[in-house]
């Protein structure tokens, strides 16, 4: 099985050039590392191309996969951080403060529950309309709107604390 038809390959290549930079940039904001961002964006495209013929909305799939990979990366980093702390009790906890930012975006988004984080990332970060996000997540539009509202409320509260 395997090789793309020419038309599929051209379409895939077109999508790659149109979407990769934005997707990778989107990922970088969340993982704070260029190499990891490339790794995740490449993996998302690999999975997309591997299922190319059976997808109705490749871009949605791309971002859903990337969202899951980012989540996995956060989990892995969390595990490593905990392991490091376990072997080095004297090591100070990692600061969530980055000099270049008023608040660590990644830590805030990471702190959202999954059901709020997914629509938040897809809508606010990836730029998908609510209708598309609802379809991607299999939730009613009203639910997505409510989730986004809750997510914003939480972030607003934390921002308030950070600035206060």
């Amino acid at each position, binding site marked *: 099985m395997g090789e793309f038809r020419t038309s599929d390959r051209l379409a895939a290549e077109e999508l790659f050039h149109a979407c990769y930079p934005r997707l990778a940039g989107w990922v970088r904001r969340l993982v704070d590392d260029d190499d990891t961002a490339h790794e995740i964006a490449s993996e998302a495209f690999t999975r997309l191309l591997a299922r190319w013929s*059976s997808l109705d909305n490749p871009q949605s799939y791309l971002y859903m996969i990337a969202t899951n990979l980012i989540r996995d990366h956060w989990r892995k980093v969390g595990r490593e951080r905990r392991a490091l702390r376990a072997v080095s009790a004297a090591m100070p906890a990692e600061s969530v403060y980055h000099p270049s930012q008023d608040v660590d975006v990644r830590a805030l988004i990471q702190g959202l529950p999954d059901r709020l984080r997914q629509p938040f990332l897809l809508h606010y970060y990836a730029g998908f309309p609510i209708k598309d996000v609802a379809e991607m997540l299999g939730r009613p539009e009203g639910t997505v709107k409510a989730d986004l509202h809750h997510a914003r409320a939480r972030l607003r509260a934390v921002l308030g604390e950070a600035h206060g």
Partner: protein
Amino acid sequence: MDEPRDDIDTWLEERVTPLQPHPGTFEQIRRRARRRKATRAALTAAGVVVVLAGVIAVPRLILNGPVGSSPVASSGTATPVQAASTGPGKLTGTGTPRPTDQSAIPTPTAPPAVPPNFAASSVTFVSTSTGWVIGQAGTPGHCGPPKAYDCTSVAATNDGGSTWHGVPAPVTGAPNGGTGVGQIRSLDGVSAWAFGPQLYATHDGGQHWARIPTHGMRVTGLETVQGIVYAVWATCAGAGADFAAGCTTFSLYSSPAGHDDWSPVPGATGLQASGGAAGSAQLVLTGSTGYLMTPGGQLFSGPVTSPAGWRTVTKAGVAAPLPCAPGSSETGGHPLQAMLASTGSGLALLCAGPASGNQQAKTLYYSADGGRSWSPAGSAPARGVAMSLSGTPTGPLLVATSSGISFSTNAPGASGALAWRTARGATAPGGYSYVGMTTSDQGVAVPADVGQDAVWFTYDGGAHWRESPVR
């Protein structure tokens, strides 16, 4: 979003900077995708994209067990224990978790831990690294709230079983008559189904599960490939863990994998064993073709992407009989007397004779023409009672029995009778209820005694197996 924009929007948008790919990235991605497609095709050809396991479901008594049944905390600080005691994320009637406490932002932590005492009953792998296992965890009777015996738990691995982490699970218990679930399949790590006898679906990687109404019928089998999912729905009378006992009428249903829209497959409803006796059915999907072994001992087959195109397999204009009929089922719903598997370019069928102690005749047949005709392929070792048959993309077969696992060193069809060897390291007491190969080299087995709290892996085609504790 309808609400007015505020500083959060500005804050989010100000740091968007595209990241250009390195030269050659697309070609590299394309090559990787091609390899994965080839692997998946081989994998589905063996009928093992999804890996199943039988349920041997005697609830275990465990001391001090926190819970498993409640959905494991999906993020943040809640441990499974906390999730159970406070009930966040419990499914409502529509299967949508209620939002958790909105007043506090959880501290980012590692992924949720696997609930303790995880008695794995079924496993599904979507690649060599990513798989999910379902089972019961905690202490039955103390798994709620809200209901005792809600102990179903799900764990996942992203490193081929080296480590496991908790995933939210359907809020239900072990198979018990018409309720509970004990088996799991996933198409791609995003859409997955927990079933047997009830049916639950997730389309967001397990974060939320919705119960699918089955109109009183019990789901005894389910497989998915190529963006579509098929399931066997049956009318059964079995009680307790034997939910698939006393099944008299079977129907094949299908749904697009991405959402829940189940409908019967034309021509595959109301299937019965001869004389209306209790029977079983088995579903096998390859990358292109699906097969249903009917309780009457025939094959119903068609293109996986077109449920309307399925037909009874015929030879010379009449239904082609299988060498043996599936007979009754074991606890998890799998047939005990006939086991079908896709292997290499054909189908393999194991016909199991009556068990005598720990001995049982196991006769193999092979079909290279989609089940129209069958040729004898020798016998598997008599030791142990057969529980599961698996093929591999390159042809060799594996049989899980009450005594362990046997593997053939050759493929059926070309070289006469199969030659068999006993696998090393497959030492679970009571043997294995399920064996399935993800690739020709890598496979997984589930112990018949789920109290092992582990699954077993092979990385050399079944010759050697290694235990992977689910914790």
